[in-house]
């Protein structure tokens, strides 16, 4: 058994912040799929999600000496970075353009699990959802994405966005209300938005 798997996020974070690249790699291994799926749900593109996942971890590394881990998991913090990166994709991609170019994602052999047709269908469905979500103010989009797309609890979402828990609650409430109205106006019959 790989002993690295036994190390907590907190311990790996300490090691990574001290410059240990392998610890950073372990955190990537542990959380990259969660970040990948969150990024997909914010962009409706699996390819973009993969690029942004790398950028999220690059940004995580760049700021490793600035961030103090709150709680047991770094995942909320990663989602917070992902929120910022997806919000400003062009700027973030620009910052890491040279790095991303050198990452070998497109040089590797296609994975059998890479179901192209299924992924295209995912993208069409997610794009329809995002069309509706984009009608919301950006700050409410962020809260909705973290609480609904990533299924974070209020406290984790608050950590991710560095805002009070009460603000998360109120923004989410407003987002749901706006979504109901928006969808009612566009579909002709009242939709139901998931309640917590």
């Amino acid at each position, binding site marked *: 058994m*790989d*002993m*690295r798997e036994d190390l907590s996020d907190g311990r790996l974070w300490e090691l990574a912040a*001290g*410059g*240990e*690249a*392998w610890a*950073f*790699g372990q955190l*990537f*291994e542990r959380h*990259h*799929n969660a970040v*990948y*799926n969150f990024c*997909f*749900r914010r962009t409706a593109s*699996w390819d973009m999600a*993969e690029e942004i*996942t*790398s950028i999220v*971890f*690059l940004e995580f*590394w*760049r700021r490793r000496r600035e961030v103090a881990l709150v709680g047991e998991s770094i995942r909320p913090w990663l989602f917070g970075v992902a929120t910022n990166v997806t919000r400003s994709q062009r700027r973030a991609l620009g910052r890491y353009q*040279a*790095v991303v170019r*050198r*990452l*070998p*994602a497109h*040089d*590797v*052999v*296609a*994975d059998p*699990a*890479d179901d192209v047709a299924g*992924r295209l*269908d*995912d*993208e069409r*469905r*997610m794009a*329809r*959802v995002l069309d*509706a979500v984009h009608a919301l103010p950006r700050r409410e989009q962020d809260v909705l994405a973290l609480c*609904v*797309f990533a299924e974070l609890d209020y406290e984790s979402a608050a950590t991710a966005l560095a805002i009070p828990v009460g603000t998360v609650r109120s923004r989410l409430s407003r987002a749901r209300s706006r979504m109901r109205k928006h*969808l009612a106006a566009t579909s002709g019959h009242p*939709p*139901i*938005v*998931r309640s917590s």
Partner: protein
Amino acid sequence: MTIFDDLPAAREMPTAHAVARQHAIETQLPQLLGQQGPHRGRVLSVAAASAAVATAAVIAAVNPWSSTPAYASWTAVPDQLDRVATQQLGITCAKDLQRHFNGSASGLTAALAERRGQFQAVLLQGVHDGGTSMGVCVNTHHGDLGGLTSVLAPLTAGQVIMLDGNPGQTSGPDAARVAYGRTSTAVARVVVTTQDNRTVTASAGGGYFLAWWPSGPGVSAVSAYAANGRELVVRHYPAASTGAPQQAPR
């Protein structure tokens, strides 16, 4: 029913992509961002670098003004490092070798790691162009000793052990030599005898062995033993010239 109940299901990043990205981040990130983590303050200089077939090269870091007793804690029998430490040391060594040997050192991962007193050493291996490449790093008070042996042909049937590299610093108060190579699966223990009559137990496993000692003379003999203690073979090597780096004895 809501629009959020029909979200596409989560997927895993294609495994090959994830592995490639993780590897790239681990190995390239510090240099790419120009933000190195804490460094051990080594000053490495490349004494020679050759990617020729089966040629050992050596890098050595030397502080000729140091008065520190060089290797007082060194032991002839090594302690093995655990898997975490092995991988950690391997990643650091791979970066160092990559920095000094460029593409010749790519794709190397830790095969063995050991500790002798305060000093750690690691052997890396990788496959290139149908052959094996090997790299080695030894942490010393005076910097690192490192070596790279590129693209070795596989051991032939019946071959028990092969000394692939014997680089090092052959003179001075911080002289040290490294010996490394490949073994058949029958080999469980390897003992290196040096030209100055040291008997050094090598780290051995997974088809590789690694040893180093705190003096300049090279390998005199390499002995391979089976798990039951039976001696499988002893290979002798004539005294080599004292210049460094040296061609690995064959």
